[in-house]
C-alpha cells in the first residue's frame, strides 16, 4: 500500500512541480533584464494548450518519431521514481533501482529523442542529435563517477539507500566533508549540462547555430511537443531532487513521523528545490553560452570534481562499509 502511495505522491509532485521550475527561472531572468516576463505558471498553460492542438507529422518520419515523445516522457517519470522526494515516504520495499539503472533509463529516453531527431530527415534534427550525443557522452562519466563516489560513501549503489545513509550520518559530517562539497559542485555542473541550460545550451533560442535540445524536437507539435517539453522539465527536476536530497539531506532534522512529518519534509524539499532553482537561474544570468567545442572543458571540470571527491574520500579513508 505504501508502495502505491509512494508512487502516486512521487509522480504527482514531479508532474506538478516540474513546469514551475522553468517558470521561476524565466521570471528571475526577466527580472534581471528589467522585463515583466511571462507569468510564473506560463509553462502549465503552454502544455495544456499544446495537448489540445492537432499534431503535424513529417511525411518522412516513421513510428519512431511518434513513439519517442511517449518514451521520453515516461522514462523521465520512471526515473523520477528512483529519486524519492522525501525519505519519510519511502516504502521498505521500494521500486528497485540504483544509480546505474537510473542513468540507463534516462539513456533510453535520450536514445529515442536522438533517433527522432534523425527520423524527420531535417538538417536541424540531425544537428541537434549529433550535439546531444556529444554532450551526453561527456556528461555520463561524470555522473557515474559522482554517484559512484556517493555510493561508496554510503555503502550502497541504491539511490534511496544512499539518501538514507547521508541523513543517518547526520548534520555534522555532511557539509564539512570536502568530498561532499566537491560532489555537490560536480552534480551542480552536471545538472547544467544535462538540462540544456546556459552555458551549454539556450532553451529559449531557435537559432540553428546554438540549438541543441530544441533542434532535436524542432519538428514536434501538439501533444508530442508537450510530452517532450514536459519530459525535459521533469528530468531537470529529478536532477535537482537528486542534488538536494542526496547532498543536502534534511529529513534527519524532522523527528516526527507520520503524515505531519511527511508534510514538513516535503515543505523543506520545496524550499530547497527553489533555492537551487534560483542558483541555477543566477548561473544562467551570469554566464554566456559556451562555444560548442568548449563544452568538453566544462565536462572535464565536473569529472575532475567528482574524481577529486573520490580521492578526498579515499584519502580520508573513512567509512568503508563492508558489502559482502
Amino acid at each position: 500500500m505504501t508502495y502505491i502511495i509512494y508512487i502516486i505522491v512521487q509522480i504527482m509532485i514531479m508532474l506538478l512541480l516540474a513546469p514551475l521550475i522553468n517558470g521561476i527561472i524565466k521570471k528571475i531572468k526577466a527580472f534581471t533584464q528589467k522585463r515583466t516576463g511571462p507569468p510564473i505558471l506560463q509553462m502549465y498553460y503552454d502544455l495544456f494548450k499544446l495537448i489540445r492542438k492537432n499534431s503535424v507529422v513529417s511525411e518522412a518520419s516513421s513510428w519512431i518519431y511518434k513513439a519517442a515523445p511517449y518514451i521520453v516522457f515516461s522514462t523521465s517519470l520512471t526515473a523520477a521514481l528512483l529519486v524519492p522526494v522525501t525519505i519519510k515516504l519511502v516504502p521498505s520495499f521500494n521500486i528497485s533501482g540504483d544509480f546505474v539503472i537510473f542513468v540507463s533509463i534516462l539513456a533510453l529516453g535520450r536514445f529515442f529523442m536522438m533517433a527522432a531527431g534523425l527520423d524527420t530527415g531535417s538538417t536541424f534534427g540531425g544537428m541537434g542529435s549529433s550535439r546531444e550525443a556529444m554532450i551526453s557522452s561527456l556528461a555520463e562519466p561524470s555522473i557515474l563517477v559522482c554517484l559512484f563516489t556517493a555510493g561508496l560513501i554510503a555503502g550502497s549503489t541504491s539511490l534511496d539507500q544512499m539518501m538514507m545513509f547521508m541523513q543517518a550520518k547526520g548534520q555534522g559530517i555532511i557539509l564539512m566533508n570536502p568530498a561532499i562539497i566537491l560532489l555537490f559542485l560536480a552534480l551542480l555542473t552536471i545538472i547544467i549540462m544535462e538540462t540544456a541550460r546556459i552555458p551549454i545550451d539556450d532553451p529559449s533560442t531557435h537559432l540553428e547555430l546554438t540549438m541543441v535540445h530544441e533542434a532535436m524536437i524542432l519538428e514536434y507539435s501538439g501533444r508530442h511537443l508537450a510530452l517532450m517539453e514536459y519530459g525535459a522539465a521533469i528530468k531537470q527536476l529529478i536532477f535537482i531532487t537528486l542534488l538536494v536530497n542526496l547532498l543536502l539531506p534534511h529529513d534527519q532534522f524532522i523527528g516526527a513521523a507520520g503524515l505531519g512529518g511527511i508534510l514538513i519534509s516535503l515543505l523543506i524539499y520545496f524550499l530547497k528545490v527553489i533555492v537551487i532553482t534560483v542558483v541555477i537561474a543566477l548561473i544562467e544570468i551570469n554566464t554566456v553560452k559556451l562555444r560548442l567545442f568548449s563544452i568538453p572543458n566544462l565536462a572535464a571540470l565536473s569529472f575532475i570534481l567528482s574524481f577529486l571527491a573520490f580521492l578526498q574520500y579515499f584519502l580520508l579513508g573513512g567509512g568503508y562499509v563492508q558489502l559482502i
Partner: protein
Amino acid sequence: MGILQFDNYIQLCILLFFIGSIIALGLNKKARLCNYVSNGISIIATALLAFASIMQIMGGKDVIKLSLLKSTLPFIRLEMTIDGLSAIFLLILSLLTICVSTYSIGYISSYYGKRNVGLFYFLYMSFILSMIFVFTSSNAVFFYIVWEGMALLSYFLVIYESERSENRQAGTLYIVMTHIGTAFLLIGIMISYSYTNSFDLFGSSDAIPAGAKNVIFIMYLLGFGTKAGAIPLHIWLPYAHPAAPSNVSALMSGIMIKTAVYGLIRFVMGFLGLQEAWWGILIIIIGIVSAVLGVAYAMMETDIKRILAYSSVENMGIILLGLGVSFTALAYGNLLVGQLALIASILHTLNHALFKGGLFLGAGSVHYATGTKDIEKLGGLIKKMPISALLVLCFSLAVSSIVPFNGFIGEWLTMQSIFASVAHGKHGINILLILGVAALGLAGALAAACFVRFFGISFLGIERSEHALKAEEVPRSMNIAMGILALICLSIGIFPLVAIKLIDRASYGLLGSSILDQIQGGFLVSWYSMEFTSNRISSFEILAVLVVIILLSLLALRVLGGKYIERRYGTWDCGFEALNSRMQYTATGFSKPIRIIFRILFRPSRKRSTKGGTAYYPETIEYTVDSESVFEKYIYKPVFVRARIWSRRTKFTVQTGNIHNYLTYIFITVIVLMAYNSFI
C-alpha cells in the same frame, strides 16, 4: 543409460558437424539442397549441443572426458574435457549458431549460382566444429592445434568473397596477426610445459616458479589479447569482420573472439592460478583502453560492419575489465568479488554474443536488401523493412546497455563488481577502478551515440541513394533468426537471474564459490529484484512501470486533449522548395563533434575541393574526411614499412649477386669458427 548420457550428445554433435561438412562439399553442385541440408544439420547438431551443455551445467559438478582419434605422435594428445566453464561457452556457441544457421537459409540464397555454396558450408561447419574443440580441449597441444585450425578456417571464410581486394588484404592481415599472437601463446604453453612436463590444462601448476608464471601470463595475454581484439592488438578486427559474409561475421564477432576470454579464464585462472595482482590490473587497463577507444573508433566509421567490429572491440574491453577485476580480487584472496566479476564478465560475453550476433545479422539483412554496407547511402529503411528495423533497434538498445535489454545487465554486474572491489580494495587499485567506472560511462554513452547514428542514419530519414530506394524486406527465415536473438536478449534483460544462476553454477568448479546466497529471490520467480545485498534492481519492474506510464499518459492525453488528429506534411525546409535527401545530416557530420573533441585519437584530415563556377558559388563541393586509427598510423604502419625497407636494403647488401662476396662469407665463417675453436 547408454544413449541418454549427454556426452553422447556431444559426440553426436561433433560427428554431425563432421559429416555435415563433407556432405556440404559433396553437394556443391546443388546449391539449394546444400543450403537446406547443411543448415538443417547444423541446427540439429547445435540443438543437441545446447541440450548437452545445459545438462552438464545443471547436472552436476563432475566433468565429461572424451577422447578423439589417437594421434601417433608422442606429444600430441587429442583429449577433450567438458566442465561447467566449457559448457557455458558451448551454450553461448549453440544459442548463436542455431540462430545464425536459421538466418543462413535465407541469406545464402543470394549466393545460388554465383558462388560455391558447398565450399562455404564446408568451411562454415568446420569452423563451428573447430570452435567446439577449442572450448572443450583439455590438452594444451590439442588446444593449440584447434586454435590454429580455427584461425585457418576463419581466414578462408574472411576471404570467401575474394574478388574484392580489401577482403584479401583483410584476410592476410588477420591471419598474420592471429598467427603472431598464437606464437606468443605457444611460448607460454612451452614454458609451462618445461616446468610441469605435462600439457594437461587441468593439471597442477605448482611446479612453475613465480617468475616464470609472470612471463607465461604475459605470453598468454599477448596471445589471447590478439584474438580478443584488445587494443593495441586489435588492428585486424575491424578489417576481418566486415570482410566475411555477414553470418560468418556474426559467428566471428559473437563467438570466435570470445574464445580468447575462454582461453584467459582456462589458462590463467584455471591453470596458472592467480598470484599476482598486477595481472588483473594489466587486464583492467587494457579493458579500459579497449572499451573507450573501441567505441570511439566505431563512431567514426561509415561502413556498417566496421562500426560493429569496432563496437566488438569496445565490448571485449568491458568483458576484459570484468575479468581483470575478477583476477585482481582473486589475487587478493577475495573469492566472492572474484566470482561476481567473473560472472559479470561471462554474462557480458553471452550478451555480447547475442546482440552483436544479431547486429551482424541485421547488417547482413541490410546488405542483402540494398547491396551496400555504406550507411551514407542508406536511410529510410524502416519503412521498407519494418521488422528488420525493429529488431536492429532492439539490438542497438542492447549494445548501448540500455534497459530493459541484456547489455545493461552485463554492465550493471560489472559496475557492481567494481563497486564491491573498491569497497574492499587495496588503495592503489581503487583509482584505476574509478577510472574503469568513468570508462564504462563514457563507453556506454558513446555506444548509445554510435548506435543512434547507426540506426538513425541507415534506417530513419529519407533514402540517400538508389540502394536504399530499391530495398525490400528480407526473407522470413532471416527475420525469424534475428527475432529469436532479440527475444533472448530481452528475456535475459528482464529475467537476468536465470542466466546469472546458470553461469554461477557453471563457474562453480573453477573457484569453488558461489554468489547465489547473496541473491534474494528464488530461481523460478526470477522477476523478483536482482539483489546484491542492498543494491537491487529489477528491470522487469522498471519495464512494467514504463509501460504503465505510457498507457496512462496515452489515456490522460485522450482525456485532456481529446481525439488525436494528425496532419502529415513535409518536414520544415526553411522555405526552400523541397527537402531532399542530400540536405539530411550525414553520418560523417553526425560524428563531427566527437571527432573534433577526440581528434588526438583519430588524426582527422579534411579535404575540401570545389569544382566549376566561381570561387564563391562553385557548382560542386566535395568534402572528405579521413580519420585513421593512431595505432595503425603511428605503430603498425611505421614498423611494417621500416621492416620492409630494412629487409629490402639488407637483402641487397647481403645477397649482392656478386660471387666474391659469397666466397668472402665462407672465408669469414671459416676464420671466425677457427677463432672460436682455438680461443674459446
